[in-house]
């Protein structure tokens, strides 16, 4: 009982100060006496570190190491600090993470949740900097203007690779960033209202094939992974979908429930309540993963033999010139944070644990390169007019 009351009273004190706006008081969390690393260079390899982190995560799972979310430190965190080699003098102060989307969105939730334990492991605060605009590009552009010292990093999503392929930005995402870690994979599902006339995904495809452009599908904006999936599907069936993009999740959902669109391509976690409440039902899983917990009977698009070009992932990147030792360190920190209960509970609620999506920096980079080529090819195939973008 006591710790929670203690925390409460501390936060009250904190907020009272804010309310009075008179004095700046020292927040209690920043005593970052991080453990010192003895030797440089001859440290363990990345694979070994990851293996050790996994071992600790298992111990936490088995209850052998004490773990208390939100505390200042505990056994699990101490053990992780032991095994993660730390670059010299880093991090000496708070690290800023630029989130290219607004508060409360998917990227924001991912970043803040993985950050919960990451900042405990680092012994430094993470400062979340929401810089929304142009599907994450305004934030990314801002990251490039900051010093490449490892104190400014950004969370990125698939759109960054797509925009790179389409050449909409003055920089190249894939070539100019240092890839830290990829942590979330696609969980999109094709949803219809419960009373929809489409019983199965095949029904919908059949109707779409006969009536090109008449099946309206919604996703998040043009030039998003949603649109490319539909373009690929349409090309395979030699038909077209009426793709109607809405910027906000809310607009998409109300358009589906209000009957303005026929099908919604949306992440599982966002609308799962509507499904459990019986308002919507899934037609097919958008990628190659079948979510057993939702409905094992429903096929995935890949199972049905259709192409699935790209999916929505999320991860962390830094400016390209950041010291590789820092990039590795950050990878290990975020990897470790993702193995701990706080983030895993969040993942489970959003079906991210099923979707996986983890890649280390190197694989993340390779995958992004491949995706960029793939998108560029698709863009050409579908007549995406990218030339006007260069001025």
């Amino acid at each position, binding site marked *: 009982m006591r710790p929670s009351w203690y925390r*409460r009273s*501390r936060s*009250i004190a904190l*907020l*009272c100060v*804010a*309310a009075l*706006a008179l004095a700046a008081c020292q927040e209690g969390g920043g005593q970052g006496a991080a453990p010192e690393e003895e030797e440089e260079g001859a440290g363990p390899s990345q694979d070994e570190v990851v293996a050790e982190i996994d071992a600790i995560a298992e111990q936490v799972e088995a209850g052998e190491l004490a773990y208390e979310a*939100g505390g200042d430190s505990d056994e699990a965190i101490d053990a992780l600090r032991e095994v993660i080699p730390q670059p010299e003098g880093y991090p000496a102060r708070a690290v800023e993470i630029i989130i290219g989307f*607004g*508060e*409360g*969105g998917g990227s*924001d*939730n991912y970043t*803040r949740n993985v950050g*919960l334990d990451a900042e405990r492991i680092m012994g430094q605060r993470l400062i*979340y*900097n*929401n*810089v*929304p*605009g*142009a*599907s994450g*590009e*305004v934030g990314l552009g*801002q990251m490039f203007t900051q010093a490449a010292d490892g104190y400014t990093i950004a969370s990125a999503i698939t759109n960054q690779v797509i925009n790179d392929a389409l050449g*909409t*930005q*003055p920089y190249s995402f894939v070539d100019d960033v240092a890839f830290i870690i990829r942590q979330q994979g696609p969980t999109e599902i094709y949803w219809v209202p419960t009373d929809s006339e489409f019983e199965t995904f095949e029904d919908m495809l059949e109707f779409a094939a006969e009536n090109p*452009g008449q099946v*309206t599908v919604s996703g998040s*904006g*043009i*030039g998003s992974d949603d649109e490319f999936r539909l373009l690929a599907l349409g090309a395979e069936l030699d038909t077209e979908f*009426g793709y*109607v*993009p*809405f910027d906000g*999740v*809310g*607009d998409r*959902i*109300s*358009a589906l*429930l*209000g009957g*303005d*669109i026929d099908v919604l391509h949306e992440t599982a*976690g966002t*609308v*799962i*309540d*509507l499904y*459990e*409440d019986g308002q919507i039902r899934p037609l097919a899983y958008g990628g190659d993963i079948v979510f057993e917990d939702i409905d094992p009977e429903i096929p995935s698009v890949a199972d049905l033999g259709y192409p699935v070009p790209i999916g929505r992932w999320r991860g962390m990147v830094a400016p390209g010139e950041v010291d590789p030792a820092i990039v590795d360190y950050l990878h290990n920190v975020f990897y470790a944070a993702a193995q701990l209960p706080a983030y895993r*509970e*969040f993942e489970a*609620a959003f079906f991210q644990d099923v979707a996986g999506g983890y890649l280390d920096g190197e694989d993340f980079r390779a995958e992004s390169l491949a995706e960029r080529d793939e998108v560029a090819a698709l863009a050409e195939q579908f007549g995406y007019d990218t030339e006007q973008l260069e001025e």
Partner: protein
Amino acid sequence: MDLFTGIGSVLEPFHLLLMVVGVFIGLIFGTIPGLSGITAVALLVPFSYVLGAEAAIIMMIGVYVAATCAGSLAGTLFNMPGDVMGAATARDGYPLTLQGHAGRAISIDITASAVGGLIGTLLLVLIAPQFLRIALRFGPPEFFALALLGMTSVASLASGSLIKALLAGTLGLLMATVGLDPVSGAVRFNFGLQQLQGGIDFIPAIIGFFAVAEIFNSLYRGTGRGRYTAKDIEKIPRFALPSWADLRRTRWTMLRASLLGNFIGMLPGAGSTIAAFLGYGTEVQLSRNPERFGKGEIKGVAAPEAANNSAAAGSMVPLLTLGIPGGAVTAIMLGVFILNGLRPGPLLFRDAPEIASSVFGALAVASVVVFFVGLLAVRLLLRLLTIPFEVFSTMVLVFAVVGTFAIYNRTIDLWVMLVCGILGFFAKQYGFPVSALVLGLVLGDIAETGLVNGIGVSRGSWSAFLSRPFTIGTLVIAFILLLLPLLWAYLGRRRRRADTAAPVERAERSSTADEQDRS
């Protein structure tokens, strides 16, 4: 009853304390020119981890409700609203301050907020599901029609010249097209600036249009503030209840605006900003003396206030029942729910009924707390008016810069603010209603997305705009609102034919009429 258990939970000492602290934060952020309620709510997100979902939501609602009210206080006192809603209130609130009736304006401001909030909460509890069913029928074509309806209130913002109001509105709509087109993804009017791809956000724009422009204006004219002295403030009672006459004058206004605002607030994506302007516009168009508005009409303060606070409650409906955020603040709240492992949506009432009822309770309690804290603070607020211009202007500019920056941490927003400051200065010099500009900026995206996606869902057929009952209904209302002033004008002319009043005298008469109302 959900509402009562909710109120009970909010009245627990710890929650009540948080609520009061939240109200204070909201009032401070809302009142300081340059800072805004959205900033306050966004900046509080990290605290939700420490507090837990229920406490965090209660506190945030306190902040939200207080800031919704206080954004207009800054508009009334300094013509420096912190929020779009405040821009509507400032139109009549600021003239009242200039005329020496700041205390009166603020009392009504706060009262209307509380009334709007309470009516909104009641509606939320009683008829939300029915309203929501209608709200869901609002697809893209309806949103386009709604934006047109909103634009009709541009006519009500015209102070004298309709042409100028139209030009300002058009410019605002054009400013809304800057950046990435939400539907086609095309980059428009970014003048080669990568950061502008994110578009022009309306908080920096409003801070520029009002706060910065107001300082520029004072510099240009060489007129400092100092209209109020410590003596004037002594006259204001410690607990500044509005006068009975003002209440009687605005009671139907408040009721109408609350009903309207609540419904508009429920429409996902419309939110309280449109509600405030529509509340104001409707009141002007229903009024038989529209020429009084914009010159210190107390109804012009009550209407947008009641509407936007009621809308704040309304915007909780799609959030709680479907998990759809209706506006910027509710989007942030959705994030707080999710951060705490809760998912707003149809199952929230089943899985965490205590949270849902806490939201209801918090809305009701927050309105009451804002009422009392606000009225107690009237004198304190008015004291801000006595700050010497030198210090005041410096402070406003610093807060304008910090407040603008703190929302998204984008440097480009600061330049947007500066440019809008210059635009706002010229607009004021030449009698262009800045609020029409703001309205255009807010409605631009809604109108265009509604238009483009309206055609999108009907697969290329314009008939969507003429065959859907709610589209037609909204368009008809817009049309009626446009025609009403003409009707009143016609009736008025017939009445006035007897006395051959020149325009100048007429203005004088209306200001004396105001004075009579006051006594």
